[in-house]
């Protein structure tokens, strides 16, 4: 997994994040390489989810929050006043912890993002729906029942539907916020396979509680604790020879 040649897609510089007066991120510096998988691990409440949600500015919707420092996407500060947050979110997709299909048909779930982004051509929508479902390895399971409500799918299928939904709007980055914590092991394996394949086209960042998962799917791993980025390195390095004592204690299961 030597990969130093890939360009930097996302970079956090001295990133701080506040919920009211509580500082949830402390001077986080992190780079995510293009078309690589970066995993963020750490104990509950360490700021992993907060960090990933700053990348598509999902925290904007929470009242009383504040960002300091910078996050650069292709070198541009995403919190700059001239950045259109709607366009940012189209470029940086997100898959949430709990599968959150909309109470619409499978087809309309995928088409949703296309329609709100102004696509009217029916054939084009149809093509993209199929392509996205194939991309999320769900097509074969649902192709005969696209009109069914998405709630009829199993949890694992729902999560892959959500992945397909974010693929449909052709993002450049996909953020996964603990995507497997609410689904069973077999479904988890499928999602992991999928992430492995997605990195040929997308930059992937995944927050996970599961260290084996980070080791399996990621190229780089960031270990966080109490809002601080403790260590960031190639995944192989982190899991075989961490430089920080805290990282070692965590991955060997001494706490967390």
């Amino acid at each position: 997994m030597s990969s130093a040649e890939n360009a930097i897609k996302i970079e956090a510089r001295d990133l701080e994040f506040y919920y009211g007066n509580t500082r949830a991120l402390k001077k986080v510096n992190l780079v995510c390489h293009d078309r690589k998988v970066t995993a963020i691990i750490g104990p509950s409440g360490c700021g992993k989810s907060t960090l990933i949600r700053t990348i598509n500015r999902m925290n904007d919707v929470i009242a009383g929050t504040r960002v300091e420092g910078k996050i650069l996407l292709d070198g541009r500060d995403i919190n700059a006043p001239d950045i259109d947050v709607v366009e940012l979110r189209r470029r940086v997709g997100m898959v949430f912890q709990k599968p959150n299909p909309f109470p619409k048909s499978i087809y309309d779930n995928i088409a949703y993002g296309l329609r709100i982004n102004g696509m009217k051509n029916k054939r084009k929508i149809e093509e993209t729906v199929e392509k996205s479902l194939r991309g999320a390895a769900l097509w074969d399971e649902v192709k005969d029942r696209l009109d069914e409500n998405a709630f009829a799918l199993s949890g694992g299928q729902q999560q892959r539907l959500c992945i397909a939904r974010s693929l449909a709007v052709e993002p450049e980055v996909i953020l996964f916020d603990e995507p497997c914590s609410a689904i069973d092991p077999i479904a988890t394996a499928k999602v992991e396979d999928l992430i492995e394949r997605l990195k040929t086209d997308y930059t992937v960042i995944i927050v996970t509680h599961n260290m084996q998962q980070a080791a399996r799917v990621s190229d780089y791993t960031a270990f966080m604790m109490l809002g601080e980025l403790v260590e960031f390195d190639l995944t192989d390095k982190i899991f075989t020879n961490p430089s920080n004592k805290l990282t070692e204690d965590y991955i060997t299961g001494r706490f967390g």
Partner: protein
Amino acid sequence: MKPATRKKIVQILGFLALRLAMGLVLAVLVLFLYDIASKGGGSISWEFLSKAPRKGMTQGGIFPAIFGTFLVTVLTGLLAVPLGMSAAIYLNEYARQTRLTRLIRLSIRNLSGVPSIVYGLFGVILFVNIMRFGTSVLSAGLTLGLMTLPWTITASEEALKTIPNSYREGALALGATKWQMIRTNVLPYAVPGMLTGTVLGLARAAGETAPIMFTGAAFFLPLLPNSPGDQFMALPYHLYIMATQHHAILQVRPIAYGTALVLIALVLGLNMTAVIVRYRMRRKQR
């Protein structure tokens, strides 16, 4: 006594108490409806529903009152439904949750508890006198609309609150604007609930007497209102007159009961409509 037996007895007694409470409520309701239906059913006829009162309101029908109530309720709806839903959308989706919005919300809750006669007097001052709409369908409709607003806002906001945040976040994460998110991924699922609450509010407004008796309802009119500036007859006010103010009160008692029956049927009809609309919309989403 063994603890297990004790637990069982407590359980049985608990259920019994709940059943009894339910039965009591139901009994009162049935008794009430039976009384009205049995005493008013006899006066219901096609003539009663389609003709105007005659001979000092001792004979004839109540059509002008049905028509008036219908008209005023429509006007009430035109004011309270769009305004109430919009205010609820603003409060729940757009407004930051500050001390000011909490105060606004509290005031709205309080307004829904203000006695209807207060709204009636307020309507007289604002619509009849200051705005010079006179005693009219318009003044009465606006007064009832104001009275219904807190109910529609509260009901609509509650409906919006039941929509999981994951629908909102999911839409935003795909690059939806806030309004796109609300219009396509929140409202479609909230509207059935909003409508139910709203129609319940309207049904309540349709049955109110106090807000309309100073603002537009008339004791008796030979003609139907043909503009919003006219006065009108209304079912609840007609009932009030027939039950307490008429010169031949015993003679018109069956008419009073008949009027009550029609009013209840109307309110029931409105509520049923809400239930059916909600059911249809929910099913369409499956």
